[in-house]
């Protein structure tokens, strides 16, 4: 049985270590926040200028001046700090963030990621995604293994415009976990969702990877 979106998020959350500073993207990555164990002290960064993102505010306590990078209302914590965009990305680009978890349209077997543009269709812009994949120490992608048309998203080569080249360190899909090896630059299938077979994964993947 493939993992649910929340199970993917929970698997990603297991990668968080005590003391980590983490930036979470939109979609499945957002769900990671709810899956962080109380014993793990993790600080969430928002690229619009905040460290220490709190939970969504209580109804009636929303503050238009307090939003995350997805423009959702959030709350602050006693340990929060605010800063401007230039400082926020100095922090990201300078390698001070330990981990980012992002969604993707495609991931290639060399660790390329495409998640910002579908030519002629989606022209929203890359936001902070290119900065995050280039600057953060470790990049984890969470995504469905296939798109809605049933086609593989973990591919030999991305067909969509790239967000970053050879930047993905780990890929978590509903079917399993792939870790990219420093030595070879190739992904290795390191974990399989319950009752999913290696053959099923291979059949839904056009990327080449190690077992």
């Amino acid at each position, binding site marked *: 049985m493939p993992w649910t979106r929340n199970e993917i998020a929970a698997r990603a959350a297991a990668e968080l270590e005590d003391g980590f500073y983490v930036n979470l993207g939109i979609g499945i990555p957002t769900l990671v926040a709810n899956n962080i164990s109380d014993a793990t002290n993790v600080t969430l960064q928002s690229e619009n*200028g*905040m460290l220490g993102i709190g939970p969504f505010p209580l109804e009636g306590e929303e503050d238009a*001046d*307090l*939003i995350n990078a997805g*423009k959702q209302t959030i709350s602050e914590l006693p340990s929060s700090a605010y800063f*401007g965009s230039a400082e926020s990305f100095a922090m990201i680009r300078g390698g001070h963030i330990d981990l980012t978890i992002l969604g993707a349209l495609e991931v290639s077997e060399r660790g390329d990621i495409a998640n910002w543009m579908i030519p002629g269709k989606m022209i929203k812009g890359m936001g902070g995604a290119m900065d995050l994949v280039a600057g953060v120490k470790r990049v984890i992608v969470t995504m469905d293994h296939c798109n809605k048309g049933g086609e593989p998203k973990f591919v030999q080569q991305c067909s969509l415009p790239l967000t970053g*080249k050879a930047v993905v360190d780990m890929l978590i899909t509903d079917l399993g976990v792939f870790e990219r090896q420093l030595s070879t630059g190739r992904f290795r299938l390191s974990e399989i969702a319950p009752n999913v077979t290696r053959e099923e994964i291979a059949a839904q993947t056009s990327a080449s990877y190690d077992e």
Partner: protein
Amino acid sequence: MSRKYANATEALAGLLHDDMTLCVGGFGLCGIPERLINAVRDAGVRNLTVVSNNAGIDGEGLGQLLRTGQIRKMISSYVGENKEFARQYLAGELEVEFCPQGTLAERCRAGGAGIPAFFTRTGVGTQVAEGKETREFAGQEYIMERSIRGDLALIKGWKADDAGNMIFRKTARNFNQVMATAAPLCVAEVEGIVPVGSIEPDAVHLPGIYVKRLICGAPYEKKIEFRTVRTKEAA
């Protein structure tokens, strides 16, 4: 020589002209200089280049200047919330330079800090690198990015004194701080103008040197793009 002006129109008097480049603060609808944007709309200047992380939403913020067709070119990182933007862009009416958010912030900082160009890893191997010089440092590939400097900066702060010293509130700081530096002249709107001496010198987020003209735009009805809440039980 007071920095205080009665309203946005007066604060912008003599500063606006066709074909100019505006550096505009804000992130989404958070911390946007809405009074000043409306005054730019009313002034009717055209053919503008606007440097701003986002383009507002339809009819709000910079969305107003898109609706009136006053913007010729946007330099932005994300415009996903604006349908009119998409329409004009696909129709070829609007020129767009997509720039990664961090690179945009750094290009504006560089423009304000006298740095004409710098190297970054952001965008290596992507469309963003096309036509740009690349170079290796310590075995890693980097892109050379050029600074951005506008003719006029428009920002929104929380409080300021008449010396121009300003503080921002929470995540409404975002691009406002850096945009203020990226043009020879910055006009700011704030929620309250306070007496000189009431902002602690150690607490100033933006020193008055950057802020040449100032209005109080209160009262504000701040818009929220995505209202997300939790219920008391879940808390």
